[in-house]
Every structure is written in structure tokens, then in C-alpha cells.
């Protein structure tokens, strides 16, 4: 039995349903809804790559791309979720802005001024 039309129909159906998921990504009320939709789309992309490989008859070539894509999708989702969670937490009590921006200007305290001065000294060649 020739299954190639069936696989093409499956790929088209998956693409259509991914477009439906894209509605949630575009119109999601919050950022995290969009992340959820992107996670589902990314998981289904692995299936789509395998199907394309089967249709082309080169599954052994496409399978490595699938593996890399699955790993990448998981890491992307975790990183975005952690970033969002970090955003939700209250700001740390000591921002320490003077350390992040040494050229902040008049608000440099004694210790920070000392630190900025002592840095180039330490890097001098002996």
C-alpha cells in the first residue's frame, strides 16, 4: 500500500492545527498563554520534521534535526518560563546600581569609588 498521500494529508492537517494554535499565540491575554501555544507548536514541529523525512524517503537524515529541535524547544520553554517567573518576583532589596553602571555620576559612594579606581591598578602588568 502506498502511504505517501496519507502522510502528506497528515502533514497538512498538522500544519492547519498549528495555525489554529497560532491564534492563541497572537491573541493570548497574557504572555504566558503565548508561551504555552509556542510550546505546543514546537512539540508538533518535531512530528512534522519526521513526516517530511518519511515523505522524502530520508528519515535517517532528518532524525538528527528532529532530536536537536526537541532539545532546543524544551530549553527555550524552560528559559522563557524561568525568565517570566523571575520577572514576577519582587525586586531584590539592594539593587547595587553603582556596580552595574560605574559611570552613573554623582551618586558614587566611597566604597564604590575606591573599587572603580582600584580595578585598573590591579590589571597593570608587573
Amino acid at each position, binding site marked *: 500500500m502506498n*502511504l505517501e498521500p*496519507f502522510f502528506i494529508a497528515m502533514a497538512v492537517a498538522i500544519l492547519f492545527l498549528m495555525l489554529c494554535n497560532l491564534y492563541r499565540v497572537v491573541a493570548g491575554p497574557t504572555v504566558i498563554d503565548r508561551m504555552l501555544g509556542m510550546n505546543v507548536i514546537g512539540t508538533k514541529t*518535531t512530528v512534522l520534521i519526521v513526516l517530511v523525512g518519511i515523505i522524502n524517503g530520508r*528519515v535517517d537524515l532528518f532524525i538528527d534535526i528532529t532530536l536537536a529541535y526537541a532539545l532546543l524547544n524544551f530549553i527555550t520553554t524552560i528559559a522563557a518560563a524561568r525568565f517570566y517567573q523571575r520577572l514576577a518576583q519582587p525586586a531584590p532589596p539592594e539593587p547595587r546600581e553603582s556596580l552595574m553602571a560605574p559611570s552613573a555620576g554623582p551618586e558614587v559612594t566611597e566604597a564604590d569609588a575606591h573599587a572603580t579606581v582600584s580595578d585598573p591598578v590591579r590589571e597593570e602588568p608587573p
Partner: protein
Amino acid sequence: MIIDILVIIAMLTGLLFFVATTVGIIRFPDFYSRVHAAGKGDTLSTTLFLGGAILFILRDFSEETLLTAIKLLLIVFYIFIASPTATHAIIDAGYEFRVPYWTRSSKKKCAEGEETTEENLDNGFYPEELKG
């Protein structure tokens, strides 16, 4: 022949669950319910699709196709671990951010800060007491 029918059945079942996932993601009223649809339906439908692909590849059996099937099995195993973990990370971030939720007794309500928490306890959404 039998393998072909099994492939078709597996992929059609996966497509059915993916349709259910998509409809759930579009139709459910709040973020937490959508996470339910995404976390469960996504895992099983991907597994069924890739299982159908494994059966189709193993139809003409040789060393190379066996290797490809083992790699696909690795992907299935990986998705089985990674998909619930990603779902958990997403819903944890949403819970931390107190995204708007929906309960049966109240329409959409936003839980922000401490002062609305008491009100939310009445809806039965956030847990009242710890089970001993």
C-alpha cells in the same frame, strides 16, 4: 499490510487527540485549564505520531532502519520526560505571576497582591488548609 493499517490507526488517533488539544487551548476559559489541554494531549498525540512513524520505518527491516527506529524511540522517551516538565515550568511561572483565573462561582478575577487573597479563598481556588 497489517502494519500499514496500524500506522494509519495510530496517526489518526494522534490527530484526534491533537484536535482535542487545539480546541481545548482555544476554548478553555483561563490559563490553568489551557495548561491541562496542552500538557496531556500534546504528550500522547506526539507519542502516537512518532509510534506510527517507528512502525512505518520498521516495515522494511534492516540495520539502518533499526538504528533510525532506536533514535525515534529516544525522542519519544525524551518527550515523555520533557513535555510534563515544560508544562510544570510554565504553570509554575504563571502561578508566581498570579495570572487571571476563572472559577465557577466568579467570572474572571485577578489575584494581585495580598489584599485580594482573602476574597479568593472564598472562591475555593487557592487552597484553604493543609491536609495533615
